[in-house]
């Protein structure tokens, strides 16, 4: 079954680890989790393909792990806190992984962070939804604001409107 479309699929350069990816990526993430133990790290390093057979990975997932294609791992259900353990097993810092995922050198990535990070401008949407969220551009509209104390009143209001 094709992946169900979600509103957050519109965010560029982002694979949201949702319930569907969590289910698909169970094998990748549990493989990564196993790398918390030194004996497992050694076994993996000794024969990567063989070690991966202990986990139920699809051929695409296996290929992504063997190639260290971190973005593809995320797309196929890996979660960054888990895949970071694979990076650590390879002896890489987290910033190295971040640079790899963004397609830049570690130095360029580190410089970007020192200059205040990647700007949100132009990076909000794949489909041109580049207006800032209401909350940043001048507050959430009053009618949307929940007032926990006045709940019954709010309910009756909305009932009237209907």
């Amino acid at each position: 079954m094709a992946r169900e479309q979600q509103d957050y699929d519109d965010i560029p350069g982002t694979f949201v680890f949702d319930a569907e990816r969590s289910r698909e990526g169970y094998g990748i993430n549990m493989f990564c989790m196993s790398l918390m133990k030194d004996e497992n790290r050694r076994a993996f390093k000794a024969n990567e393909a063989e070690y991966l057979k202990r986990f139920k990975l699809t051929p695409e997932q296996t290929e992504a792990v063997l190639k260290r294609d971190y973005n593809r791992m995320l797309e196929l259900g890996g979660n960054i806190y888990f895949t970071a353990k694979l990076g650590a097993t390879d002896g890489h810092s987290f910033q190295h992984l971040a640079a790899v995922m963004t397609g830049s050198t570690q130095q360029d990535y580190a410089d970007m962070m020192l200059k205040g990070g990647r700007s949100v401008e132009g990076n909000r949407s794949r489909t041109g939804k580049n207006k800032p969220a209401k909350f940043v551009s001048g507050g959430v509209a009053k009618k949307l604001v929940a007032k926990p104390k006045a709940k019954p009143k709010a309910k009756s209001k909305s009932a009237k409107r209907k």
Partner: protein
Amino acid sequence: MARIIAGVGSSHVPAIGAALDNGKTEEPYWKRVFSGFEKSQEWMRETKPDVAIIVYNDHASAFSVDLIPTFALGCAAEFPPADEGWGPRPVPVVKGHPALASHIAQSVILDEFDLTICNKMEVDHGMTVPMNLLFGKVDKNGHWPCPVVPLAVNVVMYPPPTGHRCYMLGRAIKKAVESYPDDLRVVIFGTGGLSHQISGPRAGLINSKWDKNFLDNLSKDPQKLVKIPHIDYMREAGAEGIEMVMWLIMRGALDDKVDEVYRFYTVPASNTAVGHIILENRAKASGKRKPSAGKLKRAAARIKVERVRS
């Protein structure tokens, strides 16, 4: 009667813990981060809470993808630091407060918040880094200054609980604490954030304007924050910036009107915008503190904030 006297918001960037553990705090890059918490440690030493409730998230340490509880409350007597792949952090075992924790569990579950109870749990940098930032460095064989009730929130798998749900859980925790018979002065921490994305081609995203708005409203008008939909957090503050919903549990556990006694913000620590705030309830618990000292500190803190902002 127990009371929540103040709330602390703090980022929990793992690299901050690594910098502390590897003696890098004097390097200019890290000194910029740690100096922002000097005033906070002074505040904490004077406030001397009896218990801290720490809202945080686990990062594939205690919870894998086998179990993903939305809200998990630590009711154990102690919580050992987790081995996150480089051996456990050299910090003391975190002592719990099982009596208060189980009281909170009982109260909030009857208030319709269906918590998971953890009678055995390891804790990772998500909790111990903010503890270091507020309590200072504590020798592995020493003791943290107070026991802790940990509340782990799922913000790793989408969807995390909504901001509104988090805020209301904070309300329920406040009610639970206030119905605890012993006189305890409690500080509640909300941790994580602020804006950051550490995954995928958009990694490195920071949105300082969002962060400043968030801190301003947290202090003055939290109702503006509780209805922010998840898509806005992820779009504007990064896929992992959604951790900020945990701060709303802390805010919900405070009074409507609070005094902001301190704020600090800097970019970056590793891949993340570091945010920190201290909010005090106006009606403080009886005894121990002189009100005049509070006023003085607030004045001092304001000066510090100005400096940080400029």
